[in-house]
């Protein structure tokens, strides 16, 4: 027995020793590092439902939105400052301050000499110059400005275009201004207004000239826009403009001209070179009402509907009603019975009750972005569904 026991002990010791050293720690599982993918559950309708396109276009394999109407701003547009034309010259910013200077200068009257020298069309400018020269005149002008504009809406163009016009005014205004001072403006306006119109007709040639002139002369720069108001504004601004002009020369507009004038919306996101495919006005998150929304609508209508009692034939109570809603969910017109109902008897009662139900529930609270789908609603009133 002792032999057996010792062999057993030796055997176990050997086994355990072997186990301790060889069976030590099992190696860890090699778990592949798999990145967890976030999974969102997106309703299929969001994708399959209406995307932007043309309502009348044929189906195309690839969805394309309607090309935008407004030409997108070209990426490297050089329309700087207040230019209405696409040029790379930075003219505009200086335009405003200088007319003011001119208006300031007139008293010394250096300007008159300059303008004629540069431009062949002497009439407008020479005439224009007198206006500043006669310092008395400016005062009446501002008054005129305010009033004539509203009065003569058709005429505004001739006025701005022609610097010359103001010229004639001053002499008259000088006379008239005295009157104008004492008299109410309308008289002066009438006088002033008639003449500009006449002259506008007379001097079509002269009109373009002043516009053209300013461009070559950045110094005097009277741009197309500027001349319009300047004649009128000059006097008004004189007082205020002097300080401003100094400031502007230093910074604001120069810097503004250097800034990128491109609008933030100028990107080409919506731009499509392809023909528009079938789609709605804009991409919506599913155009069709969801089952929940339809259910809510149905339930609401069911609550508003009082089923005519005492009719044994349920078939006669089946009524289909069509009605149009505006964006706020309100009824646009009287609901129209398009199916079922009758001109008399229980059928008529049923039809009327259905119409009443719609009217009673009237402002419907439906998702605005799906307006396309519920602008027109057809509801089937069936008493068997209600129970």
């Amino acid at each position, binding site marked *: 027995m002792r032999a057996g*026991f010792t062999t*057993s002990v030796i055997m176990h010791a050997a086994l355990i020793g072997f186990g301790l050293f060889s069976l030590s720690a099992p190696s860890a599982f090699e778990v592949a590092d798999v990145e967890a993918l976030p999974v969102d559950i997106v309703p299929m309708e969001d994708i399959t439902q209406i995307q932007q396109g043309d309502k009348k276009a044929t189906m195309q394999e690839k969805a394309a939105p309607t090309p935008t109407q407004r030409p997108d701003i070209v990426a490297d547009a050089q329309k700087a400052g207040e230019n209405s034309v696409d040029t790379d010259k930075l003219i505009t910013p200086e335009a405003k301050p200088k007319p003011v200077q001119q208006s300031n200068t007139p008293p010394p009257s250096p300007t008159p000499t300059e303008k004629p020298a540069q431009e062949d069309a002497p009439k407008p400018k020479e005439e224009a110059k007198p206006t500043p020269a006669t310092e008395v005149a400016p005062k009446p002008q501002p008054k005129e400005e305010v009033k004539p504009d509203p009065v003569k809406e058709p005429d505004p163009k001739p006025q701005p275009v022609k610097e010359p016009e103001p010229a004639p005014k001053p002499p008259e205004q000088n006379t008239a201004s005295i009157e104008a001072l004492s008299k109410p403006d309308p008289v002066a306006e009438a006088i002033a207004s008639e003449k500009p119109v006449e002259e506008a007709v007379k001097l079509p040639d002269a009109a373009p000239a002043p516009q053209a002139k300013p461009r070559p002369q950045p110094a005097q720069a009277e741009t197309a826009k500027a001349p319009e108001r300047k004649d009128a504004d000059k006097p008004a601004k004189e007082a205020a403009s002097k300080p401003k002009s100094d400031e502007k020369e230093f910074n604001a507009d120069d810097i503004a001209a250097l800034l990128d004038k491109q609008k933030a919306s100028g990107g080409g996101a919506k731009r499509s070179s392809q023909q528009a495919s079938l789609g709605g006005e804009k991409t919506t998150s599913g155009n069709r009402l969801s089952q929940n929304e339809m259910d809510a609508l149905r339930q609401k209508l069911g609550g508003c509907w009082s089923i005519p009692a005492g009719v044994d034939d349920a078939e006669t109570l089946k009524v289909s009603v069509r009605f149009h809603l505006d964006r706020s969910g309100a009824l646009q017109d009287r609901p129209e019975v398009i199916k079922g109902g009758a001109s008399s008897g229980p059928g008529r009662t049923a039809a009327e009750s259905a119409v009443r139900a719609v009217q009673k529930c009237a402002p419907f609270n439906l998702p605005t972005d799906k307006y396309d789908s519920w602008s027109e609603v057809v509801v089937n009133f069936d008493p068997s569904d209600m129970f």
Partner: protein
Amino acid sequence: MENIALAEPAAQLSIWALFMQAGWVVKLVMLGLLGASIWTWAIIVDKLVAYGRMKLTLNRFEQVFWSGQSLEELYRTLADRKTTGMSAIFVAAMREWKKSFEKGAKSPLGLQNRIDKAMDLALTREMERLEGRLGFLATIGSAAPFIGLFGTVVGIMTSFQAIAASKNTNLSVVAPGIAEALLATAIGLLAAIPAVIAYNKLSSDAGKLGVRMEGFADEFSAILSRQIDEKVAQRV
């Protein structure tokens, strides 16, 4: 030893670490099972050796017995030796035979009975010696899995309590406790499986030896009975 990349390095999973982490109940169970296993293997080794030796002696005795040697002579050589197996039965029978004849037994029937009794006794004693301790193997075979299971249940119970206290259900927190608890069952099975197999084998071996000795006893009894009849006939 490689460090495990899992969880905290403190939770080692080597067998020794598992054992050391276990609670005292589980430790006790594991140690008990280890002891049982050792004892089981001791018995197995002992029995295998004993049975092999027994088989050898049986073979040698049978060879000698059937070699035509005089029974008297054989008895004289075996009488003062320590005998096992068939030789023990032979010696027991011969001793009874001698006692009865030397004192001049009257009834051959009584003599026959006494010889049979003596041989039965010797046979039983031999069988008892052969089959002794086999019962322990049977017990271990059936009980060790349960003991191991007990250790596992206790271990898992405590580890779950610990998990509940730590308020962390991460698998790397749960796993070591369960692994440690399962070690108890593993040891239980480790002890039980060889025990069961060895019990079946050893008991069948013992049965075979017993049958062989019984056969010899019957045969020898027949021989002696013939001798008795011959003696009686001579007297008459």
